[in-house]
């Protein structure tokens, strides 16, 4: 019996060594170690052997079995590795084909993106964002902003009016929200008002529809110096940390004193000259770029909301209005206002 076991072991070991593939190996495993294999029946029949044979035969059979199992496993590993290798070799792709396109992300409109930038800057300075109607009462757009009845801006040439109501118009600035905001909330008030505005003008530098962000701050003791600090912070956020401001006295009906605000040119650094001595084309050699209008809120305006807690002797403040298109044009070199409303995807996709 022991010889037989050794013969099976030797035969099987030789066969496993010589096996050429994992399928053949599986076949050998079934033949030598399967349920119907001779070695298996030897082990199964041990109980029927005489007492003294049981130990040696059982031991030999188990050793043979363990040895064969180990041998099979080693061969399987060896064969599997080489088979995988040859399989991978045939399983090639053309790596030069384009990758599977993910859905490309869309693009924000430059006006929306610029508006958010201004909003976020002002939110950081403690302002809320308020939004008002675009179709507005004459009262909020002009009267309560200290425009006298015959003021040129009120003329049909400059302002769009609604057919059915002679006193209803398309707001010409975001400023009507000044009085609306003050009606809705007692001081202190710190708001910015983004939105569309409309003026009856259409050429390369005027669009009948454009966008503004209004700022309004009213509290006790606010000063023109505070306006300067606020605008400096905003302009630095928009145009760079080393920008400087210049306030030039001007005239607006709803602020007094009024100023126009220039920011130092961010292309030439305010020198008006580019490297090489050329005149800076952005500021036209001035070193300054006009960027917004502002001023201390006129007491007449506060007079319209005095019953809401805005006594011009008690509270004061400032307002400003900045053109979103102008900021976007300056920041991104857009040459013509009308491009913003053309919505050519070839332009839209330039800005992420």
């Amino acid at each position, binding site marked *: 019996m022991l010889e037989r076991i050794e013969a099976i072991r030797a035969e099987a070991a030789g066969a496993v060594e010589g096996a050429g593939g994992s399928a053949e190996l599986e076949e050998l495993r079934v033949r030598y170690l399967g349920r119907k294999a001779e070695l298996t029946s030897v082990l199964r029949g041990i109980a029927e052997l005489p007492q003294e044979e049981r130990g040696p035969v059982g031991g030999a059979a188990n050793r043979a079995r363990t040895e064969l199992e180990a041998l099979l496993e080693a061969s399987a590993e060896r064969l599997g590795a080489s088979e995988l290798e040859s399989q991978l070799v045939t399983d090639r792709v053309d790596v030069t*084909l384009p990758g599977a*396109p993910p859905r490309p992300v*869309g*693009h*924000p*409109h430059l006006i*929306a993106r610029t508006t958010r930038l201004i909003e976020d800057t*002002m*939110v*950081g300075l403690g302002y*809320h*964002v*308020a*939004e*008002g*109607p*675009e*179709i507005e*009462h004459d*009262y909020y757009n002009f009267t309560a902003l200290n425009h*006298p009845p*015959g003021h040129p801006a009120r003329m*049909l*040439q400059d302002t*769009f*009016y*609604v*057919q*059915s109501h002679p006193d*209803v118009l398309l707001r010409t600035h975001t400023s009507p929200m000044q009085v*609306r905001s003050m*009606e809705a*909330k007692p001081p202190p008030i710190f708001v910015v008002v983004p939105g569309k505005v409309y003026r009856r003008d259409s050429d390369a530098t005027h669009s009948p*529809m454009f966008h503004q962000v209004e700022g309004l*701050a009213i*509290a006790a*003791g*606010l000063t*023109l*110096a505070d306006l*300067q*600090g*606020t605008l400096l*912070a905003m302009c630095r956020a928009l145009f760079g940390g080393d920008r400087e401001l*210049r*306030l*030039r*006295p*001007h*005239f607006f009906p709803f602020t*007094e*004193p009024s100023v126009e605000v220039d920011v130092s040119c961010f292309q030439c650094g305010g020198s008006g000259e580019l490297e090489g001595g050329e005149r800076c084309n952005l500021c036209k050699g001035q070193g300054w770029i006009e960027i917004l209008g502002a001023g*201390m809120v*006129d*007491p007449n305006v506060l007079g319209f909301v005095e019953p809401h807690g805005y006594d011009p002797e008690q509270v004061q403040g400032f307002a400003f209005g900045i053109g979103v298109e102008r900021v976007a044009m300056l920041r991104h070199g857009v040459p013509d206002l009308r491009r913003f*409303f053309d*919505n*050519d*995807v070839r332009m839209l*996709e330039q800005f992420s």
Partner: protein
Amino acid sequence: MRVPYSWLREYCDPGMEPAALADRLVMTGTEVERIETVGPPSAEGFVVGKVVACEKHPKADRLSACTVDTGDGERPIVCGAPNVAAGQTVAVALPGATMPNGMKLRKAKLRGLPSEGMILAADELEVGEDHDGIMVLDDQLAAGTPLGEVMPLGEAVLEIEVTPNRSDCFGVHGVAREVHAISGAPLADDPWAEDAPADGDGEASDYASVAVEVPELCPRFTARVFTDVEIGPSPLWLQARLAAAGQRPINNVVDITNYVMLLTAQPLHAFDLDEVPGGELIVRTAGAGEKMTTLDGVERSFDAETVLVCDRNGPSGIAGIMGGQVSEVSAKTTRVLLEVACWNGTNILRTSRMLGLRSEASARFEKQLHPELCLRAQRIASRLLVELCGARMVPGTIDVAAEAPEPRRLTLRAARVGGLLGMTISQDEQRTYLERLGFAAEPEGEDLRVTVPPDRHYDVAREVDLIEEVARVHGIDEHLPTTLPATGEAVGGLSREQRLRRRAEDGLRDLGFDQVVGWSFTDPGEAERLRIPAGDARATPVLLANPLSEEQSAMRTTLLGSLLDIAARNVARGAGDLSLFESARVYLDGEGEFAGDRPSPVAEPHRLAAIGVGSLSQRSWRGGGEAADFFALKGIVEALARGLGAEVAFSPAEEPFLHPGRSAAVAVAGAPIGWLGEVHPLVCRAWDLDAAAAFELDLAPLAAAATLGEETYEDVTTFPAVYQDLAVVVPAAKPASAVREAILGAGGDLLQAAEVFDLYEGEQVGEGNKSLALNLEFRAPDRTLTDEEVAGLRDRIKAKLDEIGGTLRE
């Protein structure tokens, strides 16, 4: 306003270069748009010459061969002017002189004859427009006299943009006072201080009368009469000044009225008194259909608010805007009536706009001038008429005036100045600035009692206006500190709806959509192109009374129109696939919800809308490129809603502009918030598009339904879920949502989700049927579900499906 620098310096010489003065002016509130040099850049090479001899050029009929004494000797000059003649005193440019256009003059030969210079016409020096002939100068001038001593050459002109409140700066003298204020340089005596001698015959009222029927529109009308007027060209210095200021010289009388207007900002008008029958002038409003031909040769008709200056036969001039041809001063005029009046600014502005006629006079009157200014202008003009036209002034001034406004007296509180500006300006400084500007200022303790001069009456009416004056003269740029508000609201921020709107916009962008900004305007025909029927509210947009064009005359009631416009434009430019969205308002009948006491006149709901053209996914060698159809856009709406944590429902619904079988209403919490669908083929055709799908949603209800940011934790780890798939055969017409709702209803609380993941129609399920495959998720929050529990639920689902005509495929 063009201010010739030499003219300005006659009243206040700041002792600085024009560019330096311009910088100062700009920083104190007077915008200088540019500095222009009128005439040659340098006076060098321009002299007075005497034409010694003048003969026809032998080879050219139109040229003359002249010999000119230019002080340094005689030289040959070929001249093309018809009026050149021997004996004339003329202006000569010598070789080496630079002409205004930059050309440098050289010795030359003209048709064979040598020419060493050029005899000048007025326009060649930019001292006038005359090019019909050379300028003939005063014979008293010696040959060789530098021309710069005779007339201004190389005149710097400051071009000033006057803000509407500063009517005084529409005159050179007003600008001079401003220069005085900001520089401290002395201001000359008022040019109106001295009047002309009145040595004419009789009294002004013997010659003329004025009746003002509309005193509220004509607060003052003054008139003087001049006899023995000799009409002729103005002296060169006057012509040159007018030319530099941008006015064409006409004749001495008209030039004087223009000159005085440019000096004082007060317009004047000269009548040929002999063309005013009986010397009778009547100021009244126009009658219906009344017409007149103005000085510019245009016949104009007036409305009932137009104020006219009339003679007894009819209109003789439009008040404050332009005179009429009937009484125009001409070569034969000998008697002049000089009108200096004050008009209602608002009325002048209105009439000027109505007529489309803006003049130098109306531009000043529309700012509202003070009645006091009339006599200033009368006095200066009278002196010039006497000096330059040989006129005799008839004694007396006809003066029809309503009551003049009281001078304003204001208190300027010291505390208020610093308190508003955030910088200190001493009382002495305040007083100095105000007095230089023409105000009277008397200290009263720390404060100042201020009287406003007439030419600032309408501009400076309150303490705050005085604060502005002292601030700007003091120098805001130079002195203002930079601070941030010490008080304020502690935190700023966006409202929840604003945050959610940003999230929605970002979501659409992340889903591949490009954001567009369309016009709020549309044309009234858009509704028809969108097949919106007449009764629909969207077919009756808010219309503009004064649109720029018919295409921009209505306010949009849907974002779809402009999305289609933009898509069509891009397709025409060669774009294939388009995914576009807009986040903007539409304008509908109703009231808007905005801050403020008065509701907004129109409802302005904020909408999110998107359009897909071609495919939303990119074609590649692996596939993709599926059409942007109903389900493509529905997937976007679902993803958008998921991003906000809002639950949206879809139900079949028709819109006139959508494919009737491929359109749905979108709802949150049972209320409709918009539509979704494939655009109707006829609508696509109207926009030249092959196909498109789109949606439009109201933002407010979507945001209100959003749970984003308000979610609470749900335990999903302690007790595992049981997942099962289910295939249901139902009649093809049965909506998937009905099947899903039936399953969810039967599954109860333990059925957490049931999502359709497959659709099959074909032989295996029989004609007229479809099979839906759903994935079910069962979970209990407090225990692990047993197989028996799930089996029980599945039986209930089966029974429920039976009720709606569905059978489970096992």
